[in-house]
């Protein structure tokens, strides 16, 4: 016996329309509302331009100006040369002094922009270069190349140029960049094993491109009772280090500080060598010197820039003099060593400054020019100026007081620009890939803006590299890399919640199923009734 409520027709109709209305509301308003309120905000990213970045083709162009001196070309060849230039003044006795002066005079003749190279071809018989030297590279962007084609008579201009080509290419590879430099700069995006041992050592030694560096000069005095050390580090920095850092201003910001540490000892015990009557540190023990000292050095807590440390260690009176020996047990002239990507340590012996019966503590003024000579060369290595391996027949003028020659700086700028472009494009493409893969990450407007500006700056940098404007290319590449790093390392891009699909179902089913079941069942019931009604109508008609 089952009791069913008997509904009259209008009531049934009302019931049906109510069910249909609710179902319509749920479907038409509810589902879009739920979809909209549970979607994550993702700002638009220029996906097409980022896709172009993946297959990035870099073209590097160097502007070369070739100047033929008087006597290198025959008159008819001279007529074919597009523009004519005035030659240098010949000068006096001493060759090397003359060479520098000539270089300086030539430098004032032409205005060289960043990245360009000027090659002066001088006649073979010229007395300016020593006999066995073919090329002289000066401190600015000029090179003197001794031509060997003047003897060829009757040759046309194209042959002369063709004969000069390999020599000029060698000059350019020394002064601008060669295949190994570019490969080393692109190590981020290349498979390992493509770079040679030398370039691997160079890339391990020099710091990677970073918007800023911190340089700390520390004086370690383990024996303040005996040695009262005075070092005029501010003046020395002004005179020797700041010129170099000022020249490197387009590359990165530098912040320099100095400190004096008392009672700081090296972690290794030096051995006394009676033959040299000095204490020695062998090359093997040098690796263990740095770690105990590093704990006491400190660093600027406010910035995350890489730190270069230059330590000047004055041995205590009991262990003076202290000399460093290399693997062959020979004394090292500089008495200094450096560690890749960390900095350098120099040992400065002061035992010669006083005798046995002086009143302790002794006032000692440290010879900063000697110290800075070592630190400057270590700093150059750390910053990326490679040890110059001059090809045979080349004379490379040492930079000396200025710290770095302009063509050396250009070399660094080339590799830095390429490195920045490679790193920035790698960051952007991997970020785009990450954001694509994970649908849950919110992409804020500022990230989209950073990515867009990074892509624009990257394309500008590549265009400038193709055009040969090195300074502009470097600027754009720095912009690109800082924008891409900011976008990649934005704290809001944290994909924290890993939702497998079954978890999603487990969350939604208890919420929606109890609500949807009655709606669906009532819709089904209405549908069946309508069908039945239609069937009855058809039966009635027939």
């Amino acid at each position, binding site marked *: 016996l089952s009791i069913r409520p008997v509904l009259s027709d209008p009531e049934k109709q009302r019931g049906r329309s109510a069910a249909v209305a609710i179902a319509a509301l749920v479907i038409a308003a509810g589902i879009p509302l739920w979809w909209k309120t549970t979607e994550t905000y993702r700002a638009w990213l220029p996906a097409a331009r980022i896709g172009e970045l993946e297959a990035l083709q870099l073209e590097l162009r160097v502007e070369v100006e070739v100047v033929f001196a008087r006597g290198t070309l025959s008159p008819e060849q001279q007529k074919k040369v597009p523009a004519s230039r005035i030659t240098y003044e010949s000068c006096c006795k001493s060759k090397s002094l003359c060479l520098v002066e000539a270089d300086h005079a030539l430098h004032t003749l032409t205005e060289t922009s960043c990245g360009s190279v000027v090659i002066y071809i001088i006649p073979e018989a010229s007395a300016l270069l020593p006999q066995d030297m073919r090329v002289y590279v000066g401190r600015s962007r000029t090179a003197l190349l001794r031509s060997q084609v003047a003897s060829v008579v009757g040759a046309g201009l194209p042959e002369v140029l063709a004969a000069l080509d390999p020599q000029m290419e060698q000059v350019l590879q020394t002064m601008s960049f060669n295949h190994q430099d570019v490969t080393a700069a692109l190590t981020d995006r290349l498979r390992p094993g493509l770079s040679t041992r030398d370039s691997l050592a160079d890339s391990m030694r020099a710091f990677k491109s970073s918007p800023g560096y911190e340089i700390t000069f520390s004086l370690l005095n383990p024996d303040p009772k005996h040695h009262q050390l005075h070092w005029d580090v501010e003046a020395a920095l002004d005179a020797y280090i700041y010129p170099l850092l000022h020249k490197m201003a387009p590359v990165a910001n530098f912040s320099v500080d100095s400190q004096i540490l008392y009672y700081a000892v090296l972690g290794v015990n030096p051995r006394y060598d009676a033959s040299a009557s000095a204490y020695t540190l062998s090359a093997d023990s040098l690796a263990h010197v740095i770690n105990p000292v590093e704990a006491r050095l400190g660093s600027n807590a406010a910035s995350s820039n890489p730190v270069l440390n230059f330590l000047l260690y004055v041995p205590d009176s009991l262990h003076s003099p202290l000399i460093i020996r290399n693997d062959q047990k020979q004394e090292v002239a*500089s008495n200094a060593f450096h560690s890749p990507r960390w900095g350098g340590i120099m040992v400065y012996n002061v035992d010669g400054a006083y005798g046995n019966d002086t009143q302790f503590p002794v006032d000692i003024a440290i010879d900063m020019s000697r110290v800075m000579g070592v630190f400057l060369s270590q700093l150059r290595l750390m910053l990326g100026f490679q040890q110059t391996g001059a090809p045979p027949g080349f004379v490379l003028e040492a930079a000396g007081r200025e710290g770095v020659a302009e063509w050396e700086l250009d070399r660094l700028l080339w590799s830095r620009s390429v490195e920045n472009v490679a790193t920035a494009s790698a960051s952007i493409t991997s970020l785009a890939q990450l954001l694509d893969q994970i649908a849950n990450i919110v992409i804020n407007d500022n990230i989209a803006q950073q990515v867009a500006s990074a892509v624009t700056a990257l394309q500008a940098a590549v265009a400038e590299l193709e055009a040969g404007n090195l300074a502009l290319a470097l600027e754009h590449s720095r912009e690109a890399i800082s924008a891409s790093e900011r976008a990649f390392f934005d704290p809001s891009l944290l994909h924290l919640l890993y939702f497998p699909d079954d978890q999603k179902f487990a969350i939604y089913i208890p919420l929606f199923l109890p609500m949807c079941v009655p709606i669906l069942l009532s819709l089904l019931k209405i549908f069946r009734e309508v069908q039945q009604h239609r069937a009855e109508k058809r039966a009635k008609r027939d």
Partner: protein
Amino acid sequence: MPNIIAVVCASYGLAQSVCDGEDLPARAERFFRSDHTNNWAVLVCTSRFWFNYRHVANTLSVYRSVKRLGIPDSHIVLMLADDMACNHRNPKPATVFSHKNMELNVYGDDVEVDYRGYEVTVENFLRVLTGRLPPSTPRSKRLLSDDHSNILIYLTGHGGNGFLKFQDSEEISNVELADAFEQMWQKRRYNELLFIIDTCQGASMYERFYSPNLMALASSQVGEDSLSHQPDLAIGVHLMDRYTFYLLEFLEDIHPASQANMNDLFKVCPKSQCVSTPGHRTDLFQRDPGSVLITDFFGSVRKVEITMETINLTVPGIPLERFGGEPHTETALAYVDQLPVAQIIHQKPKQKDWHPPDGFILGLWTLILLVFFRTYGIKHLKHIF
């Protein structure tokens, strides 16, 4: 054993030097044997509460070994989820022991904990790994590694099949960890990474790794529990987990110049000692584990080069030009006023904005009024309105 290895290295180096014409044979070979220039360590203990003393002791003993072998505090990110040394239940305050009978205090007196207590969360851990920290984070809380850094990551706590529990309230899954490592690889934040995990079913955490140059060790396989080593009756809790106990014993024999390699590390704590089966994974690692030194990850042996070239700056006769213009006179320096007392004492009281009375006060007064009128009758209402 070490002698044979040294001889082999030297002879290989000599052969190389003949080819390259270098004059530093064995040194050059050592230089290129591994690609790293610095070492970092991220040591995480994820459990809180006193009865998880052993997890803090695990982490601190690895910290101690790593510091002893040369990695400085500035290159270690130490995350401890709870403070055992200064816990109220610690009968010996300021100590954390790893051997029973209180033989070895791993807390020491120069511990630098970077993330402590409730700061140890899955989010902070992933932020440290991927580098996505807010700009105000100090240097000591960041992992500032570069493409030539070898990183050691040690995790310990309670885990399960595919997850590790943080702070008893959240978990990190193996997929998230693998994704974090891939993010690190994309930005070349490591050269090689050694991942050690000491939890139950620890091998499940490295199953999902897919980035190159990763080597992983776990204390137990999927389905097995990692067991603790020994309780101390005076302290009342288990002091260490077995795997880390034998790992610490192994590391105590390593010194900075040691030539022990990873194959020795894989043999630490066999099933007879550990009851669980330790596992390891090296298929993503490019070098042969037998050529990887323990000190490549646990220590910090710096590569060193002698400075051969110097720049001759002592040229007599040329005066030193000052770069910044004329020399500035020494001005007497004074400290900035650290505590502006005058400003504090004479501070005017801040004007507080007026807020309408909130619901509680309104409800309370309504209740009082209702009770009054109900007791004494509604006729008193005319006195109000």
